[in-house]
């Protein structure tokens, strides 16, 4: 508490200085964000000199609140989520001094929007199976392969990339992690259309892409460890708090209230079960946040995404059944490239189809249940036959 007492006035003063020296009303947003970074207020938990002040993460809220009050440009957390949320912490953790100096600031100023080149057609749940090759050539690496499920690749300047640098080593040992320039002529981005009709994601084809060794993050062969750091940062963002009747259940509850003609006694108990399930997730999420705030490592975190996906799928399916004839329609099949995803936006047919992805993207529910069983409950792992064999000798 005495920490907090001394930190808060100090932070307040720093924000005041920033706002005084860079009037948000007149400063170019990119320049303002650079100043924010330089003042250590972009991510207060990052080390001093790298956009932060080495403070606990919870103090960021205070900074953000004051910036918002002053109508100052905020970080573009949605637009560059992968850069800010995944690449930056990874660069802090594994970057050389030179990399930290050159790569971090452009992320915060939004000069470098990132995408993530991890998943491949043959490396989904089993991410360590990536086949994209990185062959050393002097001071450079030559990268060839295909990546999928890359959101934002068509708008990205840079990418974090996982590639196989040594096929003779076992699968986890032969990977290396890079930062890659998406403007390289060998990078081809193709929209990946989904069952909703939209193309939120891309396929990315890498043909003789040249990555300087200076953009390698971590040691050669250390790619799996670096990627794990990146993915742990991804998980944190998922399953955060929702209000009562937030999400899908709110849409269905409103539909039920507003459309007496669709109500049927045979649907009512099921509706109430779904409502209760959604509320159970909400309360469990709330407890998890209290546990985390209290320093108790809440193991429920790994499960929130499983529960969220299940509820979203059940509720959105129920929604169509409830509507009867109206459920037979769809809003629009046109191929589009949406800027952002809104699971509960658009019409019920879209919501139903899009929710199918909730239990796949960012870790399938099956993988998450494995994680819970093994890491939380301590049950023995599956027998594995692929861990000690050279990657190139694995059965395909």
């Amino acid at each position, binding site marked *: 508490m005495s920490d907090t007492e001394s930190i808060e006035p100090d932070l307040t003063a720093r924000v005041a200085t920033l706002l005084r020296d860079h009037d948000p009303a007149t400063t170019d947003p990119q320049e303002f964000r650079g100043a924010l970074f330089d003042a250590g207020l972009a991510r207060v938990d990052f080390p001093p000199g790298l956009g932060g002040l080495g403070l606990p993460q919870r103090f960021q809220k205070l900074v953000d609140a004051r910036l918002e009050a002053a109508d100052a440009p905020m970080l573009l957390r949605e637009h560059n989520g992968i850069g800010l949320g995944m690449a930056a912490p990874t660069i802090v953790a594994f970057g050389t001094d030179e990399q930290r100096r050159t790569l971090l600031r452009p992320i915060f100023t939004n000069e470098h929007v990132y995408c993530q080149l991890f998943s491949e057609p043959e490396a989904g749940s089993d991410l360590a199976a990536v086949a994209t090759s990185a062959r050393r050539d002097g001071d450079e690496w030559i990268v060839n392969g295909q990546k999928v499920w890359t959101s934002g690749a068509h708008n990205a300047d840079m990418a974090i990339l996982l590639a196989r640098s040594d096929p003779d080593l076992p699968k986890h040992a032969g990977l290396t992690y890079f930062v890659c320039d998406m403007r390289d002529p060998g990078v081809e981005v193709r929209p990946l259309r989904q*069952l909703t009709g939209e193309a939120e994601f891309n396929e990315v084809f890498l043909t003789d892409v040249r990555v300087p060794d200076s953009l390698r993050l971590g040691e050669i062969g250390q790619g799996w460890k670096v990627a794990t750091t990146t993915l742990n940062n991804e998980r944190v963002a998922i399953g955060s708090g929702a209000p009562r009747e937030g999400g899908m259940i709110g849409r269905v509850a409103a539909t039920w209230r507003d459309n007496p003609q669709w109500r*049927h006694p045979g649907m009512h108990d099921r509706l109430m079960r779904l409502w209760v399930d959604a509320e159970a997730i909400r309360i469990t999420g709330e407890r998890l946040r209290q546990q985390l705030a209290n320093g108790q490592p809440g193991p429920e975190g790994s499960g929130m995404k499983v529960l969220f996906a299940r509820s979203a799928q059940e509720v959105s399916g129920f929604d169509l059944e409830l509507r009867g*004839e109206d459920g037979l329609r769809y809003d629009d099949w046109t191929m589009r490239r949406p800027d952002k995803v809104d699971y509960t936006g658009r019409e019920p047919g879209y919501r139903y189809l899009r929710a*199918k992805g909730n239990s796949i993207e960012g870790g399938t529910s099956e993988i998450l249940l494995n994680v819970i069983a093994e890491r939380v409950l301590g049950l023995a792992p599956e027998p594995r036959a692929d861990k000690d064999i050279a990657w190139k000798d694995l059965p395909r």
Partner: protein
Amino acid sequence: MNTLPTPPAADLLYSETETELRASLRRLLDDRCPPEWVVSGYDTTLDASGLWKAIAVDLGLAAILIPESCGGAGLGAREAAVVLEELGRAAAPVPFLSSAVLATVALSTIGERETLRRLASGDSTAALAVPLSTSPDDLTPTVSADDTGLTGRITTVAGTELADVLLVPVSDGDGVQLHQVTLPADGVTMTPATALDMTRPLTDITLSGAASTRIDSGDAEAAIRQALLCAAALLPSEQYGVASWCLDTTLAYLKQRRQFGRTIGSFQAVKHRMANLWLQVGQTGALARYAADTYARRDLDTEIAVCVAQSFCGDAAVLAAEECVQLHAGIAMTWEYPAHLYLKRAKADQLALGAAHRYRNRLSQLVDLPSH
């Protein structure tokens, strides 16, 4: 103890005729109805006339439920069910259910003969103008007739895209009439609907003084209900076809796809899910067959059989499609992979002819288990 009697056993197997019918239709669909073509119906209006002609005329399947006296095949609901199994398996965008079942049964029940002859020969295709979600006990005509012709609006009607005959239920105050409209016609506006399942295109129809011929003689309501009951008895077979495709395709994928150095089908959690899915699909097939057989024999148990099948099979097909998507994971979320065709078909089929809870409610009356 106060329990129900057991109905006599039905024939739940496939006859040789049925098995041959299936084989020839499957060959045709494999050849003429590939998934890439079906998917293209989501972006452009498909021309399914060639496929439909091959099915309706070349294989003669439009005539299955038409009496021999009208040029029909002398077959029945069991054979029509086999056709629907295969059409479901291929997510085929042809108007079999709408023309060869719904319209055909409505016409034959009122004793109509001329149009039936043309349906049997494949010279005509017909559609019954009711919303696809109409259940047999839920008919509420929205069209009225006066001197100027038919006026009213009917939404989400299936099977009009190739139809030259529209059968329109018309409200005449205290009863229902059935009118026939020859398409195209003045006063008939057809607006294609954007449907969740574009493999069964839907149309919103507006009638404003459309010329028509009344074709019933007072028995229209019973005839339309009979048509809806027949469709409800046979849709489970289509759902079984959809579920079977999902099961088979998922199984094949699980045997081929490797992650963590093993086929993903060797993981026990996946195995148990597939075993359970196989049990669901097996039951779906049995119930669909039971409904088709009882309908074919006009058995006393028909309506119970239909309600049971409708309650079970729609949900089972949706489960099969959803498991298909989840166990394929990413690949099934793509537009290229055909899984989504079946997810959308299964979900729309669940709503078609009325949702399951309605049938359970009706069933509860039939088996004396009132809600309160």
